[in-house]
């Protein structure tokens, strides 16, 4: 509780420190605008037009439904990866044999291009939710798994000894000695896993389903509707930035105050 109050207390200052980032995004948009003036509306619609399309979109029920569908797939996929990646990673980390064994398998999972997984998933599950969710899990699970594994593997033996010398009870050992260390590894892994999930879900939808934002993007492409395509991209980037910078980053800062 105290922890969340602290996050809320520091939030305005954190938000205010974002002005520099806003400035550089606006400069980027200025370049985009120059691109529009050089290449014309068909190739690259102006930022203002895109934002107007976006505004109209966010007021249409249809698009909101599609966003809902995509959000559902991404959250289920990411949730599964989060659960299994963390638990299995922790277990693997505690046993030297398990971690030795899992490494090459993780390398295979990471090394396989997501597009190949989509093709396989389409054969296995057909065109639908399962294909998308499966691809998301396959792409973000290894990232979280490795994070959890690293976290447990790198636990500090000296601190364990210190805990023993003061006869910490087991729950204190876990909460005060192991958990903060593991968390400092696993949390960034969650963040990058989430980013991965969000990107993959769009790609999988674009190829394998007829609904969701990815499918909308495919339709916009086939109709050469660049403003809609860019507006969709803006939604994707905007929502990812919102989750990462407005929700996760403040938590991360508070959790990792002791680090930097």
């Amino acid at each position: 509780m105290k922890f969340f109050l602290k996050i809320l207390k520091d939030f305005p200052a954190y938000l205010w420190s974002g002005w520099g980032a806003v400035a550089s995004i606006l400069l980027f948009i200025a370049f985009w605008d120059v691109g529009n003036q050089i290449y014309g509306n068909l190739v690259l619609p102006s930022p203002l037009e895109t934002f107007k399309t976006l505004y109209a979109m966010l007021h249409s029920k249809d698009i909101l439904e599609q966003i809902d569908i995509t959000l559902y797939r991404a959250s289920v996929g990411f949730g599964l990866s989060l659960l299994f990646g963390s638990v299995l990673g922790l277990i693997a980390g505690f046993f030297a044999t398990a971690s030795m064994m899992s490494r090459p398998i993780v390398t295979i999972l990471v090394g396989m291009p997501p597009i190949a997984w989509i093709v396989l998933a389409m054969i296995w599950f057909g065109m639908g939710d399962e294909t998308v969710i499966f691809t998301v899990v396959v792409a973000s699970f290894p990232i979280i798994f490795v994070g959890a594994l690293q976290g447990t593997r790198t636990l500090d033996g000296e601190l364990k000894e210190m805990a023993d010398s003061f006869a910490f009870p087991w729950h204190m050992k876990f909460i005060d000695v192991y958990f903060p260390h593991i968390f400092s590894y696993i949390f960034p892994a969650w963040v990058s896993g989430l980013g991965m999930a969000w990107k993959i879900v769009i790609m999988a939808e674009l190829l394998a389903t007829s609904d969701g934002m990815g499918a909308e993007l495919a339709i916009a492409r086939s109709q050469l509707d660049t403003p809609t395509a860019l507006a969709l991209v803006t939604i994707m980037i905007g929502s990812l930035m919102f989750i990462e910078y407005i929700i996760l980053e403040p938590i991360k800062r508070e959790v990792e105050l002791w680090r930097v």
Partner: protein
Amino acid sequence: MESLEVKHLTHHFGFTEILHNINFTLKKGEVVSIVGPSGGGKTTLLHLCAGLLDVAEGEVNNSFKTTAFAFQEGRLLPWKNVIENIAIALLARGEKKSVAIQKAQEIALKFGLEEDDFEKFPKDLSGGMKQRVNFARALVVKPSLLFLDEPFSALDIGLKRELYTHLIESCEENDMSILFITHDLIEAIRLSDEILLLEADPGHIVKTFKYDSPKEKRDDAFVYKESAKIVQDKEIIETFKLNTLELK
């Protein structure tokens, strides 16, 4: 009567014998130091006595009610601030949180930390301040036996003296016993009732020195006189290889 008895203690790491047949007894209120060259098994012996390593051959009987440990490098929890790091030793003993925090603050002030430092994380502390926290954490539980693993080795002389004084005071007030290891003979003479000289390969006790005069009366003159005497000792010369100059 609380005491720590070590009988016929021998220890192996793999096939290497680290300690060979160690025997000594530490009685309530006594300060015993183990001196010897680096790599001589001092730390292993201390860890065996403190129960951080399992005893395989021989016996370690520790009847002291409470023990605490001050490490060489502080070993503070990096994600806890100064007060939390000190209080955690009390919390581990089941003390109530509010009481623990209060005691931690009291002892922190006593150990020369300032209120501005209380919220700081170890990364923002200087080496000396970390060591103050380390000592405060060990002494806040009022241990009847304190293990010290060369905690003074990286400190400046001013801070060393300050911490010596705190230790001697605690010994007087709470009848605390100390088992500590060091490679600094002067330090050992200043603080100990008994010095065990540990020779390496494998570690075994070659000689013990006893000092009876009260610790608070040991001034510099005394300490330097005694240390000048002790470096003349044949076993000391051999154990620390003090005659290498002559070899050249």
